């Protein structure tokens, strides 16, 4: 019992560190990537000076993340006079917390067997301790192993809409209200096509469990290609990516907070760390959306040809690896995939012009939704024929 608790506390710590850490790095990536794309250098003036010396650590502008955070924390917490006190204070948490919760069902590594983690010859005492306490128990590297993981993802990410609506409504400002209304209508319309896309994947994999999906994707097509979702369902990948960016309210779908029309949209009246929560929520959402994309479409923690025992190459060659190496490889694979997917999202954000509001709605309802429905029908037919034999 207590052993399980220890393991899950470690998983939780890793999950939170993973999200917040990568979100902070993404603020840097967003600045630098846009700069390099536009022949600029990017933010690099922030430094930490080593005390009593004149050595300044710039670290390619990474220090800017610290500066941003401390600025958010130290700013005056200004609130308007006419606002709904309860809802106003609740809204940032309602947008930020569900995003964190969604990650709990995403597997960030394969199965972990603590008893087999360490080599008994090199570390006899620690290894013996682990074997004594854990035996041959196996844990899936996931904070909460739920059978209906994908439904939990949809249900909880839907709560985020409430936060933006509350923020827009309770700050008693017309810009905020407009932003909140736009956010609500946009997120609800794109949630529909996102759900339909996910259903077509559920039909393909035949399971609702995210970990089972990843295990399904560790298989091979024609013994050469990895059976990743993006290869089986390329259209669904594009649809899901579009819907996910729209859910995330980023360019080209950033109408709820477009500066040229609505100042800052639904968080116009928020200052200091409350505004910081919205921003942090946005960047954590990039991480979570990337993790979802990786889990569902890009094979999760799977490297091609890597199994729990080591590499099994298609031409009958095998490279055996220890359990510890496999675990580290899987965690690193997931990290790298999430990072690259996030970079791709940032690339989209800096390349694509923004939609007009009516175009956005038309795109969501008249283009994405029918395509998602068609994709679902086609997938269901394929599945039916393949099951029939």
């Amino acid at each position, binding site marked *: 019992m207590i052993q399980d608790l220890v393991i899950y506390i470690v998983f939780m710590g890793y999950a939170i560190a993973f999200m917040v850490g990568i979100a902070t790095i993404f603020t840097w990536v967003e600045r630098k*990537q846009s*700069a*390099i*794309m*536009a*022949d*600029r*250098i990017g933010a690099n003036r922030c430094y930490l000076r080593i005390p009593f010396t004149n050595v300044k650590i710039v670290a390619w502008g990474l220090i800017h993340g610290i500066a941003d955070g401390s600025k958010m924390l130290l700013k005056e917490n200004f609130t308007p006079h006419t606002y709904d006190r309860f809802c106003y204070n609740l809204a940032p948490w309602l947008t930020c917390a569900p995003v964190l919760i969604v990650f709990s069902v995403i597997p960030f590594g394969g199965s972990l067997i603590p008893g087999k983690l360490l080599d008994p010859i090199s570390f006899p005492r620690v290894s013996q301790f682990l074997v004594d306490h854990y035996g041959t128990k196996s844990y899936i590297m996931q904070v909460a192993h739920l059978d209906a993981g994908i439904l939990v993802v949809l249900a909880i990410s839907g709560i985020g809409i409430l936060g933006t609506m509350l923020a827009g409504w309770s700050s008693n400002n017309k810009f905020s209200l407009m932003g909140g209304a736009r956010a609500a209508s946009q997120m609800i319309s794109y949630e529909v096509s996102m759900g339909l896309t996910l259903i077509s994947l559920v039909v393909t994999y035949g399971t609702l469990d995210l970990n089972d999906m990843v295990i399904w994707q560790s298989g091979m097509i024609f013994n050469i290609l990895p059976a990743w979702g993006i290869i089986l369902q390329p259209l669904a990948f*594009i649809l899901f990516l579009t819907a996910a960016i729209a859910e995330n309210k980023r360019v080209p779908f950033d109408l709820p907070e477009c500066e040229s029309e609505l100042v800052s949209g639904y968080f116009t009246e928020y200052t200091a760390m409350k505004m910081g929560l919205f921003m942090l929520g946005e960047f954590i959402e990039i991480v979570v959306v990337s993790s979802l994309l990786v889990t569902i479409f890009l094979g999760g923690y799977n490297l091609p040809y890597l199994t729990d025992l080591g590499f099994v190459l298609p031409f009958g060659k095998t490279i055996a690896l220890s359990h510890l190496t496999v675990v580290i490889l899987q965690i690193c694979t997931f990290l790298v995939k999430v990072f690259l997917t996030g970079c791709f999202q940032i*690339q*989209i954000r*800096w*390349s*694509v012009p923004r939609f007009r509001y009516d175009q956005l709605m038309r795109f969501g309802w008249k*283009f994405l939704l029918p395509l998602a429905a068609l994709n679902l029908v086609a997938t269901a037919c394929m599945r039916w024929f393949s099951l029939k034999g």
Partner: protein
Amino acid sequence: MKKDYWNKPSMDLWERLYIFEIIRGLCITGAVFFGNMWKWITFRKGALTAYYPEELRADYSSANRGRHILTQRENGQIQCVSCNMCATVCPAYCIEIQSAAPLDDPFHPKAPDRFEIDYSRCIFCGFCVEACPEDAIRMSKDTPDFPGFDRDKMWATQDLLMNWQPNRDPAKRYPGAGQALQEVHP
């Protein structure tokens, strides 16, 4: 009734499908990104930006009106005779001159003791250069390199103006000591 404009945008089916044009756009930005990134990785500069103030632009025009130079005579003395013309014509009032009387040089009994320019106020109009009867002040193409947090530190002193890019004026020859005495007092 909607008016038809001559430059009304029209999109064919390919553009209307949106996704392919988006992919094309992503390829363009991605190509620029990876091109610049490759330059950074191979220790070259992948940006057009100059790190000011650590780095100065090399591509100023030769006619650019930048930082001032106080020219020198052949013997290294300052050319300026402290006539105050430049300070008078200066629209920004940024030139301050304090005169001295070096009476041991009978041909130039007046010379500046302190000639200072306040670069926090200078507008780089070049009137001082135009007004100078002695060709004692010129402007080079380089910019004054005075970024800082304190305006009092943006004054260029006479030493600096004379010596940061020393410029003798060989075109303007002055008579030697004995020779001139004869001419002036025959």
